[in-house]
């Protein structure tokens, strides 16, 4: 049962992942990216990561993709006539070779190291309570640093998007 769910989710995630980079219009890319993130959220459930599942849906498929779609609508881009960089196919060939090499390398790595069996889970693994306790005790300092990163990002985004600076 578990393997059927994983296989279904994995096929959906992989197929829509490929479709993200194969669209002529950015809106379709964004929609396929939402599907990829939803499928990954389903995989997180099978990995007993319940809180990560919720955050994946809320933050990624929700907030980040809404921001993407909002900007796409704001820019009102035309349909792309030339989809790929430099259609003489030289760069695409280089990218395909490098991508295949990277994929082969990663597969080689996980053949050697990916046979690890699943450990017995401790009670409460992946629940909000355990995650919250860790974030506010052992990882309190990185958690606070994260808030500064977000503050800097908010200020930076406002300054950049506001425009007509220097006047």
């Amino acid at each position, binding site marked *: 049962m578990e393997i059927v769910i994983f296989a279904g989710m994995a096929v959906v995630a992989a197929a829509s*992942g490929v479709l993200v980079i194969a669209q002529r219009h950015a809106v379709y890319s964004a929609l396929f*990216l939402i599907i990829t993130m939803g499928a990954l959220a389903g995989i997180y459930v*099978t990995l007993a990561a319940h809180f990560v599942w919720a955050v994946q849906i809320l*933050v990624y498929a929700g907030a980040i993709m809404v921001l993407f779609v909002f900007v796409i609508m704001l820019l009102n881009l035309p349909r792309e006539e030339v*989809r790929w960089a430099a259609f003489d196919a030289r760069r695409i060939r280089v990218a395909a070779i490098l991508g295949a090499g*990277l994929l082969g390398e990663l597969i080689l790595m996980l053949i050697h190291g990916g046979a690890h069996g699943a450990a017995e889970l401790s009670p409460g693994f992946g629940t909000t309570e355990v995650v919250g306790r860790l974030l506010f005790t052992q*990882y309190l300092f990185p958690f606070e640093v994260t808030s500064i990163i977000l503050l800097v990002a908010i200020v930076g985004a406002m300054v950049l998007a506001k425009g007509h600076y220097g006047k």
Partner: protein
Amino acid sequence: MHVPLWAYLGLSAFLFVVGVIGVATRRNALIIFMSIELMLNAVNLSFVAFSRFHNSMEGQIFVFFVMAVATAEVAVGLAIILAIHRNRETVDVAELNLLKW
């Protein structure tokens, strides 16, 4: 029957490579950005899978920090794309060659 670890890592590797190919081949800055998001998601999948298979919560904690950085990156990056579009009327990275030597 349980799903082995290599299946999760294989999917993660595949999604990461799709993201790399997207960044290397596409010209629309927005789609390049989405490819970067795809790569970040692929790495998150690896973190969660390792977290599950080693019974350690650290992987999931790290996923939150990755997500926070991704959110900050998207906010600033989309603001930059908006600013570029306002000045140059394009988001085609092939035409943004002002800093090219």
